[in-house]
């Protein structure tokens, strides 16, 4: 159980410190690189919401402290009076690590971030106003992600609290869980219910929506950069390609309609006999690609 406690403490501390440090590191580097001003004659550039990010960090850190406290309570009592079993400790360490809920449960967040993060941030420091827009969007996505993790951590706390209560009641009844599977089954059932209830909550749905919006904003800001360079070097932009694809789709649509009209006209005139089913008339592919 010592290892479990250390794992949680170390993980939580590192996670919160990393989030906090990242924000300030980014802020200082960006201030140096851009002077927080937009290009002359351009629209004013809004510096990213450091206050909002800090607030999100604080909310998360507060919950994280509670999580650690709860974990220590569970740790102290789960194997009370018994010699600590390293296998149980290891199992609990994996099962009750709340970080898993950030990395695995918010799959959509992860997927969106993977999709949105084309160029790495390090590649963007020497650029101008468009780059700052990208950075602001990236920061907003990080903030939304942190807010979402806070919602998830709250859910984890509820699940862990319920789990501890159930264990406590088991002990009060002079009963005990006799195998890993029983222990795991109790946790899975408790956690699953907590997660499903959370997914229906306004807080969860709101944070998911905000992540989706932030991810989309980042992607669009990146596309603006791509379009800028495409135009500079004479390559087709995404918008131009979309136009071409739209035209092709519409032409194909018209072609299909014309083919259908041509096909149906003589058929309607001939009125082929209807009736008994016959075997297919051809075995090979009938390619009809416009």
């Amino acid at each position, binding site marked *: 159980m010592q290892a479990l406690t250390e794992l949680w403490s170390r993980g939580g501390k590192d996670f919160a410190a990393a989030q906090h440090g990242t924000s300030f590191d980014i802020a200082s580097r960006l201030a140096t690189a851009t002077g927080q001003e937009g290009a002359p004659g351009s629209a004013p550039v809004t510096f990213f919401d450091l206050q909002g990010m800090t607030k999100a960090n604080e909310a998360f850190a507060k919950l994280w402290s509670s999580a650690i406290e709860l974990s220590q309570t569970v740790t*102290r009592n789960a194997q009370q009076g018994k010699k600590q079993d390293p296998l149980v400790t290891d199992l609990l360490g994996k099962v009750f690590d709340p970080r898993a809920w950030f990395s695995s449960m918010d*799959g959509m967040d992860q997927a*969106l971030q993977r999709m949105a993060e084309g160029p790495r941030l390090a590649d963007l420091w020497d650029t101008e106003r468009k780059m700052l827009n990208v950075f602001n969007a990236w920061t907003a996505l990080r903030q939304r992600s942190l807010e979402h993790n806070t919602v998830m951590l709250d859910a984890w706390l509820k699940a862990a609290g319920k789990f501890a209560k159930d264990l*406590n009641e088991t002990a009060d009844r002079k009963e005990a869980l006799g*195998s890993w599977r029983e222990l795991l089954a109790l946790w899975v059932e408790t956690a*699953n219910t907590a997660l499903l209830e959370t997914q229906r909550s306004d807080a969860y749905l709101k944070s998911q929506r905000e992540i989706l919006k932030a991810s989309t904003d980042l992607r669009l800001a990146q596309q603006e950069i791509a379009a800028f360079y495409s135009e500079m070097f004479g390559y087709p932009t995404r918008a131009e390609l979309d136009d071409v694809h739209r035209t092709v789709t519409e032409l194909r649509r018209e072609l299909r309609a014309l083919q259908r009209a041509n096909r149906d006209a003589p058929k309607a005139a001939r009125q*082929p006999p209807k009736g008994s*089913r016959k075997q297919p008339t051809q075995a090979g592919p009938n390619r009809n690609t416009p």
Partner: protein
Amino acid sequence: MTNSGAPIHIKPEQAISEAAALGEKIARGAELFSKLRDNEVAIATTPKDEVWRQDKVTLHHYRPLADTKIATPMLIVYGLIGRYTMADLQEDRSLVRNLLNLGIDLYVVDWGNPSRADRWLTLDDYIDGYLAECVRVISERHRIDKVSLLGICEGGVFTTCYAALHPDTVKAMVLTITPIDFHGDTVENRLGHGFINIWTRSLKPEDIDRLIEAYGNLPGEFMGSVFSQMTPMRTLMKYNLDMLEVMDDEKKFLNFLRMEKWIADRPHHPGEAAKQWLKDLYQDNKLINNAFTVNGRQVDLGNITMPVLNVFAKDDHIIPPATSQALGAKVGTKDYTELPLPGGHVGVFVGGKSQALLGSGIAKWLSERQ
């Protein structure tokens, strides 16, 4: 917590025994894994021939496995989320094989792999374009006026719309796990069921527009992550517990891997079609209200006058039963039958009990309507 005693009493000898058993299981699994070859986890292996192709869409005709007993050929129509291979996952868990063995002449349409270039394709193109062409090709090949349709999930919506628009070309329609009333999740409001409905309604229409503007389509991995959220703990435990449970049993491990293969093969959903799917249907619920349009024509469910068999899974967390059952009150035929099956969304096709009931249920229903 109280001091009345420790709630966990795992005996050392039992723990050691369990750990040893686990170690052996992992060793056997690793050995099995090292010997596996790609063809052993192949899916959709039932022999078939391509008979028509347009753009990225292909129509296949399955080779018969038994004498034909149902005169009218049937076209399987899957949706754009996931792939038709679910209906033919493996030899002993294949709706396709079951239907072929029961004497049904079977076709399947494969929508291909839409890319960003297909962003502008609409549901109209799929329903009134490609699907209509598939029906025409089958009709011409067999010199018949009508074919039967078997729609699966979003593909069931396609066939429903097509049948309402072209009832004179459809002999009978079978729907499986198909949403019709997209707000029907609120009927039971069951925990863990209908998350996509809830999630989609939490978005604003402009969120969806901007998503498609940014990505050009509804990325397959994005939908995959939404599905993963619907079974949260299973997703979390999948590769460290579920897989461990089966990895030393060759048959079960191969089943697990084939399912993973199907899950990983998740095509992108064309952007404009995705907007219609999410906004017109999931958000605005136009289909059940006869307000959905295809190529400017209203999809009136009352025009569905052919026999309808509506199959749903009683424990479907993706398409809650009420979302499917709503069709019964709207169709224009009196020959409407429901077939509730045990299990969940995918279990209908691959679950031991359901998949057998599904194939025989469809064949029996069709044979009674020849």
